[in-house]
């Protein structure tokens, strides 16, 4: 009796076991909810490149880069500074495609304060919501000093504290929270963090060194699909936005459209027109590595040309 019931479920077990390691399945772990900064990943024609891709949305604190290193996702989306820190700790992850060529992070303030620069903001006082663990937070601290302002944790994408307090400034994605704030009636001014000299690639597609060695062809196919996806999304974000909006209904459709439009100059630059969307240079990686070393984020500096691979 027992044996027979085992026989009956044996094929099911075999099927389950196979499904885990079926060669077709590829997981792409994002570090946030579906929104326009991932538009090209949702628009990518994976099937046309022979790939079966499952996108795993993330949230605050999702350990995306550890997931990729540990093999619980074949690909991930992280920022370049995370990758450098991970590599310096022995997590063998490699960047393949940089969506944002310029750092879209910034600090948004109320325009009524009439501040002229980041230096001004840190002199003016008030509250600044900032994720202190981020390298650029320490760079700002080093450069401008935090003694005049009160630093509080970043509320993620939530802007209610900002709306409630005129002297509240918060870290943001230049093309995201400020639009939401304007949408809700605030008069917003944004200072890009790159003004302070910190400009890593962000929203970077990464994989593990072991996947790259084991399956270079599919890594290559992935990059090609993602590049086509971004081309398509830049040209016409509408159908993809609709799909992402269904997955992430908390963001208004007009915000989806606004963000997709506002982020274009960060994604398509003179450089990508020459070298292709998503391309990276050794020089940029080297600059970042030196900065992170100076900030004390890494002890050992990884080699710049190990950090990324052009496929």
């Amino acid at each position: 009796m027992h044996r027979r019931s085992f026989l009956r479920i044996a094929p099911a077990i075999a099927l389950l076991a196979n499904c885990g390691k079926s060669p077709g399945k590829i997981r792409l772990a994002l570090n946030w909810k579906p929104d326009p900064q991932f538009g090209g990943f949702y628009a990518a024609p994976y099937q046309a490149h022979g790939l079966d891709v499952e996108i795993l949305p993330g949230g605050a604190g999702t350990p995306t880069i550890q997931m990729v290193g540990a093999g619980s996702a074949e690909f991930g989306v992280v920022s370049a500074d995370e990758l450098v820190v991970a590599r310096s700790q022995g997590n063998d992850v490699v960047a393949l495609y940089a969506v944002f060529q310029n750092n879209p992070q910034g600090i948004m303030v109320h325009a009524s304060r009439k501040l002229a620069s980041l230096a001004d903001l840190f002199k003016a006082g008030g509250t600044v919501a900032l994720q202190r663990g981020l390298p650029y937070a320490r760079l700002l601290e080093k450069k401008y000093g935090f003694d005049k302002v009160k630093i509080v944790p970043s509320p993620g994408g939530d802007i209610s504290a900002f709306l409630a307090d005129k002297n509240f400034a918060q870290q943001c994605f230049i093309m995201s929270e400020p639009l939401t704030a304007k949408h809700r009636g605030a008069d917003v001014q944004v200072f890009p963090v790159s003004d302070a000299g910190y400009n890593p690639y962000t929203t970077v597609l990464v994989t593990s060194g072991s996947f790259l060695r084991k399956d270079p062809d599919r890594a290559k196919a992935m990059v090609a699909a993602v590049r086509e996806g971004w081309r398509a999304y830049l040209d016409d974000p509408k159908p993809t936005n609709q799909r992402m909006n269904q997955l992430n209904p908390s963001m208004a459709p007009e915000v989806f459209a606004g963000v997709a439009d506002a982020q274009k100059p960060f994604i398509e630059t003179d450089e990508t027109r020459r070298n292709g969307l998503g391309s990276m240079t050794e020089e940029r990686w080297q600059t970042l590595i030196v900065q992170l070393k100076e900030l004390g984020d890494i002890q050992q500096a990884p080699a710049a040309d190990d950090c990324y691979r052009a496929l």
Partner: protein
Amino acid sequence: MRRLRSVIPALIPLLVVTAAAELAVRYGFVKSYLVPAPSSVLRAMIESRAELFGALLTTSVSALVGFLLSTVAGIAIAVFLSSSRAIQRAFYPYAVFFQTVPIIAIAPLLVIWFGYGTRTVVASAFVVSIFPVIANTLSGILSTEPALRDLFRLYGASTLVTLFKLRFPAALPQILTGLRVASGLAVIGAIVGEFIGGQGLGSVVDVARTQQRVDKVFAAVLLASVLGLALFGLINLVSYITLRRWHASEQ
């Protein structure tokens, strides 16, 4: 000596798990960016001792204040609820609300109500730790032995006298059980509050996590559990002092 010997059984699993983790990382079975070696946690603790112990102190104060508030308020609410069936029916369901409130979801609101800093953290510790105090105190007060209650009535004792001389002491073992549960929750509540409100161990964990410093995350978590243990020990001490002469659990 007997005390010392009673600690040994608890130390054995600690040593075994620590040694196993150390070896697993050292021999490459587990990557150090996923699980840190105990030695690197210790190193992180020593390197960042000033920051970590300062944070521990901040968290301890907030957790303790939140815990004391929920002790006082929880017992007061339970006494109020025990005064009549009707009151219990009317208000107890709202007390249950405290148990089910997803603190992580309302924490951002706490910041808007109480501002960044200690008050938000205390409020968070209070909200998550009050329910076990209410529930256990209430059930303790309500399960006074009927015979004793009759005896008090027979001698014409007032409601207040009955409460303080009979119901309350009789409920003490259950109240203390509620406090044991609440003490651990208060530490969790404080740390969640600190994620959003800033400062303390919660902030250290948040920063270390962003920096991919798993060793420092574990060091901070370890200190948080030390805090939880200390609170637990404190309640056990109170329990021993108050119950040893008459209750089976402490004899």
